[in-house]
């Protein structure tokens, strides 16, 4: 008889929404209180937070719009304003929001943000430059572009780390001082890092529960819980949240409760690429009935694999080290070689059965080398993979039947390898 799989929902994850909503409500109303606002892409938002600015992170806004179901209408405004549908949907989302406000086009009020006093564009990809340029040209936003090159090999890390650190010290911090009219608050940055370290260490303890067989939770729960190490960085409520989540997961382990009923997962999967913020539910409804659980992925792993290395006493140095240091080598895992190493470790540590390579149609930088990575890993570990095309938030890039067939096919491939 076919097993009827069903998700066992975590109670704690219900508590993230009020924290997230408060963050965005504070950001929406910041100007009314005379507060300065920054936007950021790349790891620069911590500098805004240190200066007491309200700030949002590019992908965080996309995740939020996905969560409140506003992505589609905002993207439509961008397209109406002439943005090409093939361009980065994060970029289009911000342009759409800006255009909606500028032209008085009604959109979900929760999706409306004040234009920033400073946009720190961490250029991780070419589209990030267009994003920043578009904000400046179309809305007169002051933009501070910084370069965040991706390392190809570990040997690249020391010089890139130095380059990025010098940008933080010589360009980013002085610009924030100028915009805010006060000296940079190193003490506040240290405090943010202290809280981040505590939250991220707790979060990594929770991450360990993915190793359980059956797993105690899913990557989707993990994605929903990302804000405390992301745009809620430095908020002590994140510590409370993760302490509670950790207790719930420990309780599940003690009582033998799996992530999916009745007896846990049939397939343990890896997820590559962005999380599909607007379609988390859609994908969940395709995985769970098949007994499939997504356990780990490259993008969520980014926040933060080695929080123990955070040194709040040396905040700027530590922040550069977290991304580009030899020990942390976080950014290295986004190079093809680093990706192969990382996924190889995850395959072993999390007893994975298959790889879902989510290929965002509007974000080439995340998709680079996915077929080659899949091929190398299959040869080395005998783990099959499948490329699933889609997008983070744009439903025009999602084909339900095609996704269904690809996912079914990988389940069949895993089954056939088990026989």
């Amino acid at each position, binding site marked *: 008889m076919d097993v009827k799989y069903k998700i066992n929902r975590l109670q704690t994850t219900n508590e993230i929404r009020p924290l997230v909503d408060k963050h965005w409500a504070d950001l929406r109303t910041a100007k009314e209180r005379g507060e300065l606002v920054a936007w950021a892409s790349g790891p620069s938002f911590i500098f805004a937070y240190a200066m007491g600015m309200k700030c949002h992170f590019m992908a965080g806004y996309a995740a939020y719009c996905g969560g409140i179901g506003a992505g589609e209408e905002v993207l439509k405004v961008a397209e109406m304003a002439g943005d090409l549908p093939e361009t980065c949907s994060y970029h289009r989302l911000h342009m759409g929001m800006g255009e909606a406000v500028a032209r008085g086009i009604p959109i979900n009020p929760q999706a409306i943000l004040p234009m920033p006093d400073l946009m720190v564009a961490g250029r991780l990809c070419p589209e990030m430059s267009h994003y920043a340029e578009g904000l400046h040209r179309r809305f007169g936003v002051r933009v501070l572009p910084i370069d965040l090159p991706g390392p190809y090999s570990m040997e690249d890390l020391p010089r890139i780390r130095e380059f990025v650190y010098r940008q933080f010290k010589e360009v980013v911090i002085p610009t924030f001082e100028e915009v805010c009219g006060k000296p940079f608050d190193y003490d506040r940055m240290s405090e943010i890092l202290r809280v981040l370290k505590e939250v991220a260490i707790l979060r990594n303890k929770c991450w360990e529960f993915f190793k359980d067989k059956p797993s105690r939770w899913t990557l989707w729960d993990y994605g929903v819980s990302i804000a405390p190490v992301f745009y809620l960085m430095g908020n002590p409520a994140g510590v409370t949240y993760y302490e509670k989540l950790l207790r719930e997961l420990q309780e599940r382990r003690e009582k033998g409760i799996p992530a999916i009923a009745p007896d846990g997962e049939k397939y343990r999967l890896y997820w590559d690429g962005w999380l599909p913020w607007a379609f988390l539910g859609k994908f969940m409804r395709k995985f769970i009935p098949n007994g499939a659980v997504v356990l780990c992925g490259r993008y969520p792993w980014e926040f933060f694999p080695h929080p123990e290395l955070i040194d709040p006493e040396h905040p700027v140095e530590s922040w550069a080290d977290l991304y580009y240091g030899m020990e942390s080598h976080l950014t290295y895992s986004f190079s093809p070689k680093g990706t192969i190493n990382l996924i190889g470790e995850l395959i072993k540590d999390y007893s994975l059965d298959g790889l879902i390579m989510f290929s965002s149609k509007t974000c080439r930088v995340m998709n680079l080398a996915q077929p080659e990575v899949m091929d190398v890993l299959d040869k080395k570990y005998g783990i099959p993979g499948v490329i699933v095309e889609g997008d983070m938030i744009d439903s025009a890039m999602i*084909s339900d039947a095609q996704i269904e067939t690809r996912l079914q096919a990988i389940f*069949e*491939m895993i089954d*056939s*390898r088990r026989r």
Partner: protein
Amino acid sequence: MAIVVGVDVGSLCTKTVILDGDGEILSYDIMRSGHYYKGAADESIENALKSAGLKKGNISYILGTGYGRGAVARADAEVTEITCHARGAARLFPDVHTVIDIGGQDSKVIGIGDNGRVTNFVMNDKCAAGTGRFLEVMALALSVDIEEMGDLFFASKKKADVSSMCTVFAESEVISLFAQGHKKADIAAGIAHAIARRIIGMVGQVGLREKVVMSGGVAKNAGVVRAIEERIETRLFVPLEPQIVGALGAAIIASERMSTTIG
């Protein structure tokens, strides 16, 4: 005698294969899917049963595949067309290692290991470039029957370049090639090569391993088959009825599941 049925409900055509207890093909059917997939599946099964001189009551197991696999009302199980094409091709050509399947609205390349097992695969994305539908639109643009397209390929002396992968743009490209004075046969050859170009990228991703089998309705177009052969510099093996490979695979899996159930 355990009679098993494989039904492949595709976007353009529905195919049914009936196997007997020894795994021999008793009959098959191919018909247009139309807009009512459930009706098409029922009718195709009915047609195949009639050809085999059987009745519904004789069927022991039905397995559905294809995009419309959920529409096979009486199916005991569903399996994707990826697995089914691999199994069907391996039955017809036991030493197959690569399948190129071009159907009505999708194209796929499947890598095959031992016993017809899928090792990896690539499918086209949301774009229908290089599929059967592409070929149909091009036949209309050339004002020829789709069956004639293959013959035209071989009449070509100098193929015209059809650079566009998009069905809509390729159609307008064909019109402008006519305006430039290119011959129908040369344009048909260009179209076949455009499909081949689309496919070789997918073959490259999966990795070419001989023997290579081509299945799906487009495999009936000898021009496209030749164009792909030229591009990959490898012979393609085409079954006598390439459209039923998926349904055959479905019937083979149905037969195995029957044995497991009985055993």
